[in-house]
């Protein structure tokens, strides 16, 4: 598996660190315990294309949002993860 970083180009996997599924979003403060439990502990554990967060610690140190097939490891898209840095890139 190699990842084409939008900032650095194609790099080997060892430069990247995995966080996990990009789908769970931290619930707003004051939300129900069910929502927090769901966010912290439950996972879709997708078999197929999954959107996920990776960190390019061995390169540009940007957080990336990568769509990858968990059955084949095929990567179909790599983009900067949503955030201040990403918004600046999008300009």
């Amino acid at each position, binding site marked *: *598996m190699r990842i084409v970083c939008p900032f650095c180009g194609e790099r*080997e*996997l*060892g430069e990247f*660190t*995995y966080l*996990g*599924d990009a789908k769970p979003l931290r619930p707003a403060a004051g939300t129900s315990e069910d929502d927090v*439990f769901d966010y*912290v*502990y*439950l*996972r*879709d*554990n*997708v*078999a197929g294309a*999954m959107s*996920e967060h990776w960190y390019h610690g061995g390169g540009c140190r940007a957080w990336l949002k990568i769509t*990858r097939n*968990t*059955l*084949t*490891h095929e990567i179909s898209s790599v983009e900067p993860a949503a955030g201040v840095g990403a918004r600046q890139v999008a300009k």
Partner: protein
Amino acid sequence: MKYSIFSLARAAFSGHKNWQRTWRDASPKNHYDVVIIGGGGHGLATAWFLASEYGISNVAVLEKGWIGSGNAGRNTTIIRSNYGLPGNTGFYELSMKLWERMEQDLNYNTMVSQRGVINLYHSDAQRDAYARRGNTMRINGIDAELLDLAAVKKMMPFLNFDNARFPVQGGLLQRRGGTARHDAVVWGYAHAASALGVDIIQNCEVTSFVRDANGKVTGVETSRGTIGAGKVGMAVAGSSSRVAAMAGLRLPIESHVLQAFVSEAIKPLIPNVMTFGAGHFYVSQSDKGGLVFGGDIDGYNSYAQRGNMPVMEDVCEGGMALMPMIGRVRLLRQWGGIMDMSMDGSPIIDKTPVDGLYLNAGWCYGGFKATPGSGLVFAHLLARDELHKEAARFRLDRFRRGAMIDEKGVGAQPNLH
């Protein structure tokens, strides 16, 4: 077919051409008291304990491929009971005791070899942590010895004791730990369960659950037709989320790939199972002479049963740090298996919120050593509808209640366990 010295002699005189099949490859019946999904070690062990301990032999084990084709055939064959947290300590010792009598119980040579498991330590802090774990084990009646440097040198003189960054200072030894022949464990349980009337049904993939008006699971739809069941147990670690999703359940589990490795055969070198404490590397030597070793999971979600180069490099570096002389030994094989990584690193054995459906999952990369214990406690749950006392903490709702069993203490980040 009963195996003994006499059956071996008889077969030898006929050139070993008349061995009978050791278990029955069954076709599905319409209905079973218990249907177990997953023909790996855990599923087959559960079936055998149901039949032998709990008197329920109208049992089917459904396997989508061939038995033992999943993680039961992909592990590094290590058995041990050196856990430190309540819940784990007692359960894994129960399993260890079952390993010690397995061959007699099953009338099958599973090559259980209590050659010892030693965890090396490389710092004062790590020695203290291992001393604490060893004390926890001893308080619970489990054997543990804290070895100093001199004792480790005597036992394994071939280690690199000049490693300036990670000097070997000693190790925590469990002499009763060791290895077992993984494929023989699968076949041994199949042999013994089949003899008690359990149907082992291969190439039978579950495609959905049959539910009655109240939502109770009353059977499964499979690639070989509908099979009714009084109760359904899942023992499909690696694919637990996918099977549970058929019943509308989401689990606190992620599937990750773990690689394992075998080198070319070399002369007898490693007398036990040993682990490098400053990285993640564990190794034993098979009877054929190959070094069998592994390390961390790759760290990203995967169902692909194959891993990537960075972890191979990391694992081999761990081996080189301990034994620089293996640097010219060639790697013979390498493979991957899919692990049910739970949110606290410990397994789940419980009823599910769906009536009639029972869960055995979340083994992370420690499922092989648990095989007999898992079979016993899961059979207990299926037969009696109550948790076995040594598995009472492996509840599905423990995450909700904050009753985690987190040996490593890294929290709800499955790829770090």
